[in-house]
């Protein structure tokens, strides 16, 4: 697998943050004094929240965009945005 420079830096930072955690020798009073607690929170918390949102809440509460009988399907930004007032056409000419 070919890694680019950003991925390498990201990997080093991950390892570095764990090493930093190990280097601090303090008393373990609370759960969060465990050296890798925040790495684990990030890891598991992110998975957990994604699952709750996408797996549990989304099937229950997702609706079509025009559910409330409003024209939100294609919101009209023409009063706000010059791009919406003159939308680009596929051949690049302004409409």
């Amino acid at each position, binding site marked *: 697998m070919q890694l680019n420079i950003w991925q390498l830096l990201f990997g080093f930072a*991950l390892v570095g943050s764990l090493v930093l955690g190990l280097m601090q020798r303090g008393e373990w009073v609370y759960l969060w004094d465990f050296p890798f607690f*925040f790495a684990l929170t990030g*890891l598991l*918390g992110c998975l957990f929240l994604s699952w709750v949102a996408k797996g549990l809440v989304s099937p229950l509460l997702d*609706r079509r965009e025009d559910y409330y009988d409003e024209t939100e399907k294609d919101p009209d930004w023409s009063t706000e945005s*010059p*791009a919406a007032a003159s939308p680009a056409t596929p051949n690049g000419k302004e409409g």
Partner: protein
Amino acid sequence: MLQSIPPGLILILGAILIPLVPARARGWVFLLFPALAVAVIAGLEHGEHLGWSFATYQLELLRVDGLSLVFGWVFALATLVAGIYALHNRDTGQQVAALLYAGSTLGATFAGDLFTLIFFWEIMAFASAYLVWARGTKEAYGSAMRYLFVHLFGGSLLLGGALWHIAETGSIAFDAFEGGIAAWLILGGFAVNAAVIPFHAWIADAYPRATVTGTIFMSALTTKLAVYTLARGFAGWDILIWAGCLMAVYGVIYAILCNDIRRVLSYHIVSQLGFMVAAIGIGSTLAIQGAVALAITNILYKGLLFMAAGAVIYSTGESRMSQLGGLYRQLPAVFWIYVVAGLAIASAPFLAGFISKPITIYAAEYAGLLGVVLLLHLVSVGTFLSVGLKVPYFVWFGGEPKKPIKPARVPTNMYVAMWLAVGLNVLLGVWPEPLYNMLPGGAPDYDPYTVASLTKGFQLLLFTALVFFAITSYLKPKQKIQLDTDWFYRTSAQLAWRTTVVPVERFFKWWEDFSWDTTRKIARRGFDPVTWTRTILGRPGPEVGAPGETASTTLRVSMTVMMVFLLATAAGIMLIMVL
């Protein structure tokens, strides 16, 4: 001689004067008023006050203390930055509404009594609703109306509570409340503006529909003023701890789901307000300082997030992530600005969020609320996931837009305002002392930059990012909206129609059809009894008098019919006599 002038009145004066200024200069003149307000606030000193006798009451138009001063500062500064962001906008209505809105917010901030507070509170609701309305679309009109009604409901609770409180205690002073029905009503009024669940849906309904520039004012003012009033009136009320925790989790889960960029940010406001409300509920000096510091820094980075999102919408004319993508080539500067704000809100080290949010968590730890601490850490993960990673990835990278987009140039004044806010975020991140020294009760007993806190911050962000990049396709935004508590009032009109009008209408329609039908049948029989009888007798034939029908057959049939009638009549008479 600028002292003892309520700074809010300067902005309200501006709202009156600004329509007289020619369109070309209006944006610049707009900036004069918040700048003047900043100057006035810089000259205010603790303990300063301005009273005014009105009827039999002594109103307090200006009350300067640690709490009101720090909020006054940030409201005035935010108005100035938002004014720069809106410099290209020449809509007089929006400029007047924005000044009136910011002025009444400052008026409410420095209000020392309940009447003055309510007076400005109501003006805020109308002025800010105009900023939604000014979008000029059908949805924006609906949103603005709902926004106004929700806030008028909150305002009525506040007014009712205040009148009750004054009748009970005889005092109109706005200070900490003790309890009782009056205090609960006032709490309800504040809770509507603080987006406490279930009164939070207006925020995700109205903010994404407001004008690009109007939302910047809205994100800075209404909810943060509510945090201020809660901190003054209800510090240490236990119920706020749990209300805050619920808000923090609820908001962040919706933020992970939403498709519209500004709706993600709006739900995330609910989540951030949760931290502040929980800290106010804890009520210790440190917790209140944490809530205030978080509110102040939140105005800076949330405003910046809305500004960057607004720049994308202005430039592309699209607000939904499912329709956007790959914008990095066209809008790289806006991307980097957004990333700074996204990292700041996720409390990355050396940015404004790092010096404020951990104080609230630390205060919860100090108060022994370990469950709350764990929950807030979890929400911090969701913050970075939804606002810091998902939005920038799916807007600036993550595939191509659905329809070809030709981005318009983002006005220079928007960039100036955004870079100013970036500067403030970095400045406060590396040099928190000016903010800490302004907090009520002096600088907090908290050191943001320790090796341990840096390690925590880096671990949390890096590992959240690791998981995000592993599951990006799972988190891809869908072209959907999510139901929320606004469902109840948005569908209640329809529901009332369906339960009361529709069944009645349906019954009468049935009855009408039935009676018409019956009448028609009877009429048809009466019109031609001969054919009818023949059908009953099972001897259908051509109609009486039809061509081909001879006189003798007609006579025969008529005779038969007559016989049948006579027999039936006789049988009827006999039956009646027997009975």
